């Protein structure tokens, strides 16, 4: 029971309290770029959740079973980026073969995920936080994806409304999105410190 409690807390912590987009600025590029429409934002979020779970688990395993025992930490970044690029490629092939409609709806997002900083960021943070048991690493990876989906969907919802409002001409587009994002972080700061 204790273990389940810890995992649950870790999940809530990474989704709401330490949301990677709002507190660590990870994945700001797609967060600003793809959040124009809710359905696209949700598609992107789902694709990221899938890849981040896979990549988080794989990099954790590689780190603890290959790199650390043999003292190869120096090649860590190269390994991580290879794993992520490989995972994206794998997901792309698998979806194209077995779920063509889903593949169509993800479209250009899938290859773009390779350069999404949330994924590499999470893999690195797992290492920085010193996560040393496997279930926690898996839950944190999945939670990070859900947190990203949450953030990008809220943003898309707001931006769909902003389109109808009267924004000063020089602030139109990216600037107003950034300012909105700032106010949104302010709201999420209310959760700060609830869980470590």
């Amino acid at each position, binding site marked *: 029971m204790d273990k389940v409690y810890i995992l649950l807390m870790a999940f809530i912590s990474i989704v709401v309290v330490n949301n990677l987009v*709002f*507190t*660590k*600025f*990870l*994945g*700001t*590029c797609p967060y*600003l*770029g793809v959040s124009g429409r809710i359905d696209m934002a949700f598609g992107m979020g789902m694709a990221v959740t899938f890849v981040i779970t896979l990549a988080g688990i794989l990099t954790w395993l590689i780190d603890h079973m290959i790199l650390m025992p043999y003292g190869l930490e*120096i*090649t860590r*970044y*190269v390994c991580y*980026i*290879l794993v992520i*690029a490989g995972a994206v490629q794998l997901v792309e092939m698998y979806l194209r073969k077995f779920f063509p409609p889903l593949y169509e709806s993800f479209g250009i997002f899938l*290859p773009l995920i*390779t*350069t*999404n*900083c949330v994924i*590499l*960021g999470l893999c*690195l*943070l797992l290492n*920085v936080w010193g996560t040393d048991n496997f279930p926690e690493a898996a839950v944190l990876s999945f939670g990070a994806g859900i947190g990203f989906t949450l953030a990008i969907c809220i943003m898309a919802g707001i931006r769909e409304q902003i389109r109808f409002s009267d924004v*000063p*001409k*020089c*602030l*139109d587009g*990216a*600037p*107003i*999105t*950034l*300012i909105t*994002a*700032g*106010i949104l*972080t*302010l709201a999420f*700061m209310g959760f700060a410190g609830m869980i470590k």
Partner: protein
Amino acid sequence: MANNTMTALDAVKGGLWTEVPVLRLILGMCPTLAVTTAVKPALTMGLSVLFVLVCSNIVVSLMRNLLKPHLRILMFTLTIATFVTIADLFLRAFTPKMSEILGPYVPLIIVNCIIIARAEACASKNGIFVSAVDGIFMGIGFTIVLCILASIREVLAVGTICDVPVMWKSFVPWAAMRMPVGAFITLGLMLGLVNFLSAKKS
């Protein structure tokens, strides 16, 4: 290919004003927002990006005729990852404190869109000299923007620049500027200002 080749002069102009990566193309957001709480880490970050950008541009430009299209992005990222490892080890050895502050944002240079975008848009189509010049000036443009943003935030948040106090005595530090809120809103207003200025010009 005629309209794809650019001259070194174009690269200089592009890097410093017409294509400043952060302000014009909205690329490379996550380091921009994360490390600009103070000027020193921002400067370190800018110089690391400059180093990686120049090296990766040169290498990509050298191997541009050997690349298969579908393996292109993978080769770019691997090249970049190698140079980022070098930069990270260098920082850890010579400025351990700074390396601690920057934390995971140094390895995150690998997925900084600016570097991949330059490799794709410039280095994979141009010769080695133009690519190197493009890397240098894109890097300088990025560093300047980072430093401006960082100095605004540092002055308002603690009243110092590079740890030297500049504000009057009764100045009340504005703690929100240190937090993510300050980063987003300052950058938003900066982008608005740039849009305003360039609209006025034309």
